[in-house]
């Protein structure tokens, strides 16, 4: 696996981590769109995006776990590393839980009720908050503490 990495990359985590962020953001966008225009293809796309967002979060989580054990973290970056790891856990659990819930709602077509659709959208938006917190800590690790840079 490491031989497939670009020479500048310390591990695969920075290559993967943007997928759950982008996919979840797009999912929330389509979720909003489905509230405004309740068309089937938008509904399907929303479900697909949330599902792929959760799957990519699983991959990002395990790549991050492996990366954290490989990189050198200076003392002053240890709290950011811990917080990044903790928020990564919360985000993963939320994404999986939400994707399963959304899948159930989608399967049972419960999201055709306006109130259910709105609640699911609000919950999906909260996932963006979690991933933003995780990304904020990850950004600090790299750009403030230089973790994973030039190792």
């Amino acid at each position, binding site marked *: 696996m490491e031989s497939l990495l670009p020479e500048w990359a310390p591990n695969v985590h920075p290559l993967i981590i943007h997928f759950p962020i982008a996919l979840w953001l797009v999912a929330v966008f389509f979720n909003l769109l489905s509230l405004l225009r309740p068309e089937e293809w938008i509904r399907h796309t929303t479900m697909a995006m949330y599902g792929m967002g959760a799957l990519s979060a699983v991959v990002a989580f395990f790549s991050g776990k492996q990366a954290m054990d*490989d990189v050198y973290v*200076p003392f*002053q970056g240890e709290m950011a590393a811990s*917080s990044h790891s903790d928020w990564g856990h*919360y985000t993963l659990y939320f994404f999986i839980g939400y994707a399963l819930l959304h899948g159930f709602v989608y399967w049972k077509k419960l999201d055709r009720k306006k109130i259910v659709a709105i609640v699911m959208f609000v919950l999906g938006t*909260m996932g963006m908050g979690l991933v933003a*917190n995780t990304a904020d800590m990850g950004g600090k690790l790299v750009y403030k503490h*230089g973790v994973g840079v030039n190792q």
Partner: protein
Amino acid sequence: MTILAALVLASCSQGKKSESGGHQHEGTEAEGHHDDAGTDGEAHEHGDAEEGGHEHGDAGEEGGHEHGGEEANSGESNVWTPSGDGVEAVQSDFHFIAGTIDNINPEIVEADGQSVLKLTADGTPAAFVFHKSYGNIGMAVRVNITEFKGTAKLVHHAENADNYEFVSINDGKMRLGRVVEGEEKIFDEADYSADDQWINLRASAAGTHYKGYIGNKMVTHGHGDEMKDGYVGIMLEGTGEVQVKSIETAILENE
């Protein structure tokens, strides 16, 4: 809802923590990449700390060490290096939570043109710790244990000999864990190798994350509940000679 409640609690627990203190050894900032020789050659200075850890009690100020004038901010690292008389250096800057000074017979010797604290352990477990207690903490000790038979531990969150966290090394194996009411619990253990007789043994306790490093390489990583603030220092369980060039401590700041 349970998840949301947990997230709110986690968020609330990340408030800023600062400590005000008195005298402290001022050394190099721990930021950046250390190599195995990372802390060699640091001067032994004590600075008036505006914030940050307080490693000296009043007794420490009466020790035979030079006192510098730089101020240490919370979050910076501080390096203790030995100088003067061995017994005096240990007695002034540390206190014992296990054993006594007679169990380690401290001397200051020269090694590689630098003052080194030489400890000769007699087999009675002995632990000496800085006077100040800490919460989230990083600790790095430049140490030579090639002539020591037994377990050398970096201890932190130490209340007494029966309650502390540790990273230990013994015969190429590192263990990371805690002792609560005398009961040892191991979070992680792994083999390590060191090319040099001097190794930079490093431990960090950040929230519920505990790590042990040799130089830049993380060897052990475990998780456990946060313990109460406690002392940091060195514990020896074995016989033979241990040499210490420096002890670096860094208060870990919430981000």
